[in-house]
């Protein structure tokens, strides 16, 4: 039976997962580092970089698997090595590239050149290659890891095989997206993948109110002997993260980080269009005196701008004075029109 096979796989992965966890002490060090500390990476630094990786994953059309693997490699590396912030960009892009090569089909992996160009990074291709080697070595070439995504797929498969109707009650894409959102916060890197995945699952079950799934989730929890306390702890954090993720409040994009390079011709175009300053002074409209003309206006608006235009002008000053000082001329010259 399919379910039996999946359950067996589940257990096997569960036993192996601790091998792929980033060192907890390393993660704690990152969390405690200040943002402006140039000696080490801060949590905010790491989180921002992971968000960038998410953007790049999306842009290049890589799968969620690639992203999750890249984040795992990154966290494991950062947890064991003391790294300077200026190298973080290179490290994170290297992790993404390694992950892409491991997961994606060869023809879908973008070149290193393209990767560097799009992410607007300052290092070279050789830098990237060297960094990849270093990371692979440090992680003992354990590049195909067990992650929360693995468990998520397994849970989803189990849940599917148990439902009476074949209809997809739980959307795997939604779950994957939620996982991505969680991974953007370093706090979740401390969680065991099996627990994190289960938290997400139960969270989604509650949100979509699939009561029959709840049974299955409990069953899995018992099978893997995950403590209630642990599950509740992570579910709380996941809930908070989800409310931020789906809040209608948009975070203002920080456009200043990105460079807008345009071609010379377009740049010229942009410059000239903003340079059109009118040379001719404004001629205020005056409804009252136009009754002399053939088509008199229908509405005699009270003309808050009714400056009499039969002013003589000064040869020196502005031709038609725009301010309302001219009010005093109005009475004097009104009769002449």
């Amino acid at each position, binding site marked *: 039976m399919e379910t039996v096979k999946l359950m067996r796989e589940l257990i096997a992965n569960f036993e192996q997962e601790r091998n792929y966890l980033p060192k907890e002490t390393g993660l704690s060090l990152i969390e405690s580092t200040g943002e402006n500390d140039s000696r080490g990476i801060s949590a905010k630094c790491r989180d921002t970089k992971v968000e960038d990786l998410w953007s790049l994953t999306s842009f290049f059309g890589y799968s969620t698997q690639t992203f999750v693997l890249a984040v795992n490699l990154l966290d494991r590396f950062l947890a064991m090595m003391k790294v300077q912030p200026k190298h973080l960009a290179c490290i994170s892009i290297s992790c993404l590239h390694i992950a892409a090569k491991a997961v994606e089909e060869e023809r879908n992996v973008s070149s290193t050149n393209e990767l560097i160009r799009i992410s607007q990074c300052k290092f070279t291709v050789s830098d990237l290659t060297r960094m990849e080697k270093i990371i692979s070595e440090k992680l003992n070439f354990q590049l195909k890891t067990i992650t929360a995504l693995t468990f998520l797929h397994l849970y989803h498969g189990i849940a599917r095989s148990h439902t009476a109707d074949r209809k997809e009650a739980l959307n795997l894409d939604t779950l994957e997206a939620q996982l991505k959102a969680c991974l953007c916060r370093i706090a979740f890197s401390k969680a065991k993948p099996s627990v994190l995945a289960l938290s997400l699952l139960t969270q989604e079950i509650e949100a979509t109110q699939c009561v029959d799934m709840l049974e299955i989730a409990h069953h899995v929890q018992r099978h893997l002997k995950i403590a209630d306390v642990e599950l509740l702890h992570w579910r709380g954090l996941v809930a908070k993260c989800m409310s931020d993720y789906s809040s209608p409040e948009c975070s203002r*994009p920080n456009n200043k980080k990105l460079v807008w390079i345009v071609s010379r011709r377009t740049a010229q175009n942009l410059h000239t269009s903003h340079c059109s300053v009118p040379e001719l002074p404004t001629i*205020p409209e005056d409804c009252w005196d136009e009754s002399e003309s053939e088509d008199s206006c229908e509405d005699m*608006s009270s003309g808050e701008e009714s400056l009499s235009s039969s002013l003589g002008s000064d040869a020196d000053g502005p031709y038609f004075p725009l301010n309302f000082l001219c009010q005093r001329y109005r009475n004097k010259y009104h009769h002449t029109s």
Partner: protein
Amino acid sequence: MSSAATTPPSVDKVDGFSRKSVRKAKQKRSQSSSQFRSQGKPIELTPLPLLKDVPAPEQPELFLKKLQQCCTVFDFMDTLSDLKMKEYKRSTLNELVDYVTVSRGYLTEQAYPEVVKMVSYNIFRTLPPSDSNEFDPEEDEPTLEASWPHLQLVYEFFIRFLESQEFQPSIAKKYIDQKFVLQLLELFDSEDPRERDYLKTVLHRIYGKFLGLRAFIRKQINNIFLRFVYETEHFNGVAELLEILGSIINGFALPLKAEHKQFLVKVLIPLHTVRSLSLFHAQLAYCIVQFLEKDPALTEPVIRGLLKFWPKTCSQKEVMYLGELEEILDVIEPTQFVKIQEPLFKQISRCVSSPHFQVAERALYYWNNEYIMSLIEENSSVILPIMFASLYRISKEHWNPAIVALVYNVLKAFMEMNSTLFDELTATYKSDRQREKKKEKEREELWKKLGDLELKRGLRSDGIIPT
């Protein structure tokens, strides 16, 4: 009288791709004029004393005499004739210009008709026909007015006269009437940009001072534009007229009269469709933006109008439209924005996917505009689905790497704005693509099967493979 034009080289007839500007580059700046004199005796003008040399009470009369003398018109196409008299007239005109600028009490009632007569005699003329049949204002050098040494001074004089402290419109309006204005407007078709510049100032002052002529002037400008757009597509003075209109629009009283709103929709918007838009686009865009600053409720008809006339084959125009649209968006009110965002961004989405990289680049650059970004952010749930498909597609398919890099910026901005929606759209897009691929594969297999069937059937009957 013909102008000093060189005949175009005969190579044109053989090579269909020769550029006009290359052909004309060899031609020096040509001059033309329609003032001519029949062969008769040379002109003789009695030299008059200078105004400054004459006591004050006699000056007004001398002034009139000089004006009358300046009514004589000379032929500048014949460069050798009447040189001494031409110089005399020039220095007289110069003197008159100075006189009008500084003097007081010289402007009697009799002076007005003489001034207007002198100006009319000099400037009102049938404009010479264009040198070549295909004068392209964008590429070719304009034909200049040969009698400019005199003409310029006449214009200068007239402007100072209008601006003079002593000028009284109530007297002048008897002589500067509708007929005068009509002839003035016709002159705007002059090829000489210097003349048009002066005419611009003259008309601007007349519009300002003569309230009774305003409606007439507006109506005539309407007619000129409508003829330009719908009949001839030829008129050299559109930019100058638009500049004047800009200063008029700027001074509109609120609420806007229906006449003005009509003008915007029936004249200004269709003006965008003309082939030679680049010559006057800056002034046109300025007018449009001024209208919208006066009455934001006009935003919807304006943008819908632009979208209706959106260029389909001229990329240069598309870039201009995009520039104008950005200027409009810079001043748009959020409530108005919401009304037109859907059709607007559908068009922007098409521009962004344009294979012409300048169009795509200009459209993508909207995302660098802070105010536009804030508007997009507020309405991302509507705008993102419209933009998403084309952005995602061109990130994979566009030939220009710079565009691909810009698309990344835009996608990243959207991702940060509204992550949930973005993920949903990505998922939908991917599943749509997969479905499409599957369908394509099925179709291919079906054809293959049909092909095999055909083959089998053919072989069975008589062993000959059907062609």
